[in-house]
């Protein structure tokens, strides 16, 4: 759920990085945080286990700049990827404005990717949301590793509807900014379309029947 403060002229969106365990969600956020200007980024919070696995979420706010006099900010979150944290993943999705599904390109993780994508759709439905109505992109991560699937295979399994997709290596940053920009664009376009639809329906003349 976006938050618009008309007095402070600020707009905030929540973006969630979702995907199976160890697919690189936290690495995406760390790279973005490391690249951002200090003035544009807030502190990165990582709620992790002693083994550095995400326990609840990672989070930081990122200022994008001004649009039409409104300061825009993304709040970037990850979910914990480990299978047992399903309830926590659902909590983090609350109020989501846009989603990045980070897939692990390795053959060995094919099933984990599919299970995670299914859980994303199911968890969104808990909030009455649908994945295909949400600004949403797919990132095929770990393209630098051996034993990875072809993009065509990944696409067939994880992106049948053809949302924007990116090859990435989050450890080096390849494809990371492109992924973020793509989901941010989709969020703006989505809200623009919603606003236009809403204005049209508000201004529509009531239908009257002449006799």
């Amino acid at each position, binding site marked *: 759920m976006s938050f618009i403060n008309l007095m402070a002229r600020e707009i905030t969106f929540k973006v969630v990085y979702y995907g199976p365990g160890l697919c690189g969600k936290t690495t995406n956020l760390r790279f973005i945080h490391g690249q951002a200007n200090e003035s544009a980024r807030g502190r990165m919070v990582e709620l992790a286990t002693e083994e550095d696995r995400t326990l609840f979420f990672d*989070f930081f706010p990122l200022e994008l700049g001004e649009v039409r006099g409104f300061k825009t900010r993304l*709040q970037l*979150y990850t979910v914990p990827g480990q299978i047992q944290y399903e309830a926590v993943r659902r909590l983090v999705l609350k109020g989501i404005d846009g989603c990045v599904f980070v897939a692990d390109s390795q053959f060995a993780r094919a099933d984990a990717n599919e299970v995670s994508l299914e859980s994303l759709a199911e968890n969104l439905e808990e909030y009455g949301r649908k994945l295909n109505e949400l600004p949403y992109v797919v990132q095929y991560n770990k393209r630098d590793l051996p034993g990875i699937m072809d993009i065509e295979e990944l696409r067939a399994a994880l992106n049948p509807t053809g949302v924007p997709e990116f090859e990435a290596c989050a450890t080096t940053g390849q494809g990371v900014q492109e992924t973020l920009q793509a989901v*941010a664009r989709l969020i703006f376009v989505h809200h623009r379309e919603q606003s236009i639809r809403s204005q049209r329906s508000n201004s529509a003349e009531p239908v009257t029947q002449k006799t």
Partner: protein
Amino acid sequence: MGHQLVIYEKEFARIERAVSQLVQAANARVVFVVDKNGQLIAASGEVDDIDTTSLASLTAGNIAATGGIANLLRENEFTTQFHEGKNAHIHIQLVKSRVILVVIFDARSSLGLVRLRVRKASEELGVIFDDIDHQAPQAQQASPFAEITDADIDNLFND
């Protein structure tokens, strides 16, 4: 479909007034209001000493987690939480299942006083957020998004 929380100047001023009054009345260090999704709505008091954005997201996460526990126990939400530290204490109150009122205080105040003042402030904030809800259709019309062009979006990403 998700919806937006849009706050107009008048209601924002009312929220800020309620929050700053609570700082005074409860002798608090900081008071802030966060929505359940972790967005900071307003803050007052010694805010420069605290990373309010991180605190907002963590507080919302905390409320979400305890709400999840409540569900498992077939309870309604736990509306109040209190954490006692060595020097700082934090009182967290869920208002109308909608927003979170957070009070951070120290030895200059007491839990009893904070609880008392939070109760009154919660009622006031509840009324304000009801008013905001009733303005929803008007807010949709005033949304700034309709005028955003592709060029505006491109400009955001051109360093």
